[in-house]
């Protein structure tokens, strides 16, 4: 048990690729927690093992021990934060577990959107922020300019910011010393009723949920009965202790100021929600720690097995996935076109990509997903308000008196040379420019209000391609605004394909309809019969293309009695047909469904 004055709880915040994990690795080495060789071998081995056991990739927090030049022994708790806007809420909970934050800035790139977004979050959480200038060893590093930007844009003094190279290990001690000097020691009374903040949790198939906690007040002991203050559920602590780089270190208790883990035979992650407060059943705290929110999905899409017979596999995979992804929600859904599948809800677009990638990679599934949708709010003629996330459920327009769509406040940081092109993009996506700020001679921050449904398709990809990868994006939800929405249906051979319907702003309906029918035309293979591809609003056709009938598919030569080649060819064709979805008389490949999701290419 460490004295509180010798504990430092901090996190590292940075824009993606600015060196957060490299710095974390160096800190592990410097504190002799793990040797260089062990870094390579044991930590990785440990990760492999964890992976096999279904735990998410890397420990989200680690306790390091450090002896400074005066021989004083410190316990550092380094808490990791997810780096993306979709996980802002998780980030804010991780920050609440700390007293300080290292704000790492790449000296070759300067401040980026996530540097700012995460920096502000750290401010809001009341953390002491220590700027760290990284990658100073690179020829393109501009330390003075970076220092200047930190002071000007973030608004914190940077003259004492350690200038380091996390890659080469240059000046890492300065970071450790700054942590001791500047991050306040935790406060909190070990004898008060317990309040432990859940800042992360992972699922382990042997132990159940491993809950990562920051003890704010009081003490938790092994064997104690605890209570989750948001849900009221009670459990008995089975294990408690510190999070060490090479595994869990068992202790008898955790005290105010400390960071560690506990297990209590908790079966699913939804029973240990990030942001909830743990107290004891015997002496419960009078109120939970502030800031708990239930993470709510913002984006929905249909997910179907490419081969309809794999529905059961998809269901099993989703059941397993939610064990360690509490933010994912799903319910069964059926589509005339795609058969049985699920409607899934995600925190955002990145979260959606992660979920789909994990389903395909970890569970070896081949999936078809439908266009992502946000949640629309419809006021109906009968006075009701309904929330719609699935175009299939969109009511006929005459029953709707008003439609509202979610808006976001977006911050985009980019080099000045791309401003024109990015402003065009934002305008095209119905964005309203709120503010344009020069961050330096050649960098600009744009503030836009944008409809969420305009950025969930391919906005991020378009942003990256139009700025050669330099633009960075951060956004947060603003609320709902009135809008003119229509449901656009796609018809193949005269029949509506429900899986291709989506809700769109009236002004965008025509250009999007055109692009979709063109994309479909290019991605539906020519077949025996001509196929009209149409887009319609409420029965009125607004765009049409035609997939011409195929004309040639013949193996003319079949000679000397060798029919095996022809047989093989037909077998291959039959296999190919199995991979196609039969929609009425039209065969549609997975690629055609997916092409509709990338209209900006």
């Amino acid at each position, binding site marked *: 048990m460490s004295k509180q004055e010798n504990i430092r709880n901090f996190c590292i915040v940075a824009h993606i690729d600015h060196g957060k994990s490299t710095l974390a690795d160096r800190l592990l080495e410097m504190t002799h927690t793990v040797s260089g060789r062990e870094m390579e071998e044991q930590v990785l081995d440990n990760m492999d093992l964890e992976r096999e056991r279904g735990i998410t990739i890397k420990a989200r927090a680690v306790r390091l021990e450090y002896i400074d030049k005066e021989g004083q022994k410190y316990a550092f708790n380094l808490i990791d934060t997810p780096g993306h806007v979709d996980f802002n809420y998780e980030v804010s909970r991780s920050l609440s577990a700390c007293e300080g934050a290292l704000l790492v800035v790449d000296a070759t790139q300067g401040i980026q959107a996530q540097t700012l977004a995460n920096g502000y979050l750290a401010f809001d959480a009341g953390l002491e922020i220590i700027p760290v200038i990284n990658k100073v060893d690179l020829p393109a590093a501009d330390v003075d300019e970076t220092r200047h930007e930190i002071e000007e844009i973030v608004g914190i003094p940077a003259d004492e910011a350690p200038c380091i190279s996390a890659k080469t290990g240059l000046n890492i001690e300065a970071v450790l010393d700054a942590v001791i000097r500047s991050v306040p020691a935790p406060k909190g009374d070990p004898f008060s009723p317990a309040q432990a903040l859940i800042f992360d949790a992972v699922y382990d198939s042997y132990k159940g949920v491993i809950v990562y906690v920051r003890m704010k007040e009081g003490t938790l002991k092994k064997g104690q009965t605890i209570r989750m203050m948001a849900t009221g559920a009670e459990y008995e602590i089975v294990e408690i202790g510190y999070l060490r780089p090479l595994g869990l270190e068992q202790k008898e208790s955790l005290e105010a100021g400390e960071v560690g883990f506990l297990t209590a035979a908790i079966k699913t992650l939804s029973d240990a929600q990030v942001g909830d407060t743990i107290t004891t059943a015997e002496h419960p705290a009078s109120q939970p720690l502030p800031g708990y929110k239930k993470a709510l999905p913002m984006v929905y899409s249909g997910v179907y097995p490419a081969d309809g017979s794999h529905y059961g596999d998809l269901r099993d995979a989703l059941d397993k996935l939610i064990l360690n992804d509490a933010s994912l929600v799903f319910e069964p859904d059926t589509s005339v076109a795609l058969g049985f599948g699920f409607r899934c809800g995600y925190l955002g677009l990145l979260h959606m990509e992660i979920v789909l990638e994990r389903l395909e990679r970890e569970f070896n599934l081949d999936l078809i997903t439908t266009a992502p949708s946000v949640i629309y709010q419809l006021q109906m003629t009968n006075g009701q308000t309904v929330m719609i996330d699935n175009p299939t459920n969109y009511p006929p327009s005459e029953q709707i008196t008003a439609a509202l769509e979610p808006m976001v406040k977006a911050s985009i940081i980019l080099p000045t040379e791309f401003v024109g092109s990015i402003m065009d993009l934002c305008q095209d996506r119905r964005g309203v420019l709120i503010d344009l700020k020069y961050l330096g001679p050649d960098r600009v921050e744009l503030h836009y209000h944008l409809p969420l449904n305009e950025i969930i398709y391919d906005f991020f990809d378009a942003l990256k391609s139009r700025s050669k990868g330099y633009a960075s994006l951060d956004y947060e939800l603003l609320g709902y605004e009135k809008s003119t929405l229509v449901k656009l249906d796609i018809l193949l051979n005269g029949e509506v394909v429900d899986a291709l319907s989506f809700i769109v702003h009236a002004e965008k309906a025509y250009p999007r309809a055109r692009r979709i029918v063109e994309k479909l035309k290019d991605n539906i293979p020519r077949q025996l019969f001509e196929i009209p591809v149409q887009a319609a609003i409420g029965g009125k056709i607004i765009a049409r293309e035609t997939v011409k009938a*195929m004309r040639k598919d*013949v*193996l003319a030569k079949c000679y*000397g009695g*060798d*029919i095996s080649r022809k*047989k093989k060819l037909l077998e291959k064709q039959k296999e190919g047909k199995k991979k196609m979805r039969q929609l009425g008389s039209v065969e549609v490949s997975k690629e055609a469904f997916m092409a509709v999701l990338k209209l900006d290419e």
Partner: protein
Amino acid sequence: MNKLGLYIHIPFCRQKCQYCAFYSSRPRPQDISRYVKAVVRQLDSYDEDLQDYHIDTVYFGGGTPSLLSEGDMAQLMDAIRRYPLSEHAEITCECNPDSATENKLLSYASLGINRISIGMQSGQQDELRALGRLHTHEKTAACVAACKQAGIENISLDLLLSIPHQTPDSLMDSLQKAVDLHPAHLSVYGLKIEEKTPFFLDPPPMPDEDTEWEAYQNTFAFLESMGYNQYEISNAAKPGFESRHNNKYWKRDETLGLGPAAHSFFKGRRFYQEADTAAFMQGNKNIVQEPPLTARDILEETVMLGLRLKEGVDVTPLSPSPQTISFLEQLEKEAYCTYHKGVLSLTRKGFFLSNTIITSLLNLI
């Protein structure tokens, strides 16, 4: 007595054509006579089996069978005649215009060969050169004349579509030149870039689907207007001159193939000789048996092969479901087929889409 078609593969060519994926190599001295002896040995190895049959078609294919000297051919024909050979057997030999001399054709005819299939390919010099052919159109015409001189009237000409440099005009010109030679039969194949051919490594520009479609439709429409009925996807003939040997393949009649890479359908089994001429000449059997045919295999073969023929397939024994029948009616509406009294037959438009039609149909039955 069962009828049997005999196929003899001659795996030698003086020069490999740019597009050809058939098994052949350049013969060294003595190769051909050694090869002929090996074929005779293989034929004799079927001695007992052949007693139940009489051979009513013989087909010398290649490679370049016309590389066989009169003596080589005589040895083969003598060997074949030791088995029951129908008096009116169709005996075909493929010929390259440049390797078939008048004398050779005279002796082939005297040995009983009564049908010659000539690899004309094109009537245009630039197209022939692009294909890597050694002959000229004059040679083709001379070869046809030599056949007739030798008393062989049943002549077939092979032509190619989609040759590099071919235009609609040059194609029509080649077709006219072919018809002017008054063959009894014409085979017209689309050039296809096959793996392991020179064209595969260095592909020539290929026409698009629509151009190929036009060429195909125009070709057979033209031939029909000249009295050649298209009786199969790639073949047209004057009435009564359809290739009896090739028809055996489409109708699943029995055929026995001799020589490397030759395929057989004999006594209910499909098998083939491995494509290794040297091993074959050393007397190695290297027969590869295809898996025994299931009832489903037989059904699929019947449909797949039968639909190559204009006369089509009687699908009544397959008891087509209402779904199948509606599919067939849809095909008929698009003029891809005719479906009458249970007999399904593809139109020219349908022939050019036969793979897709067959797979769709087989998925339904």
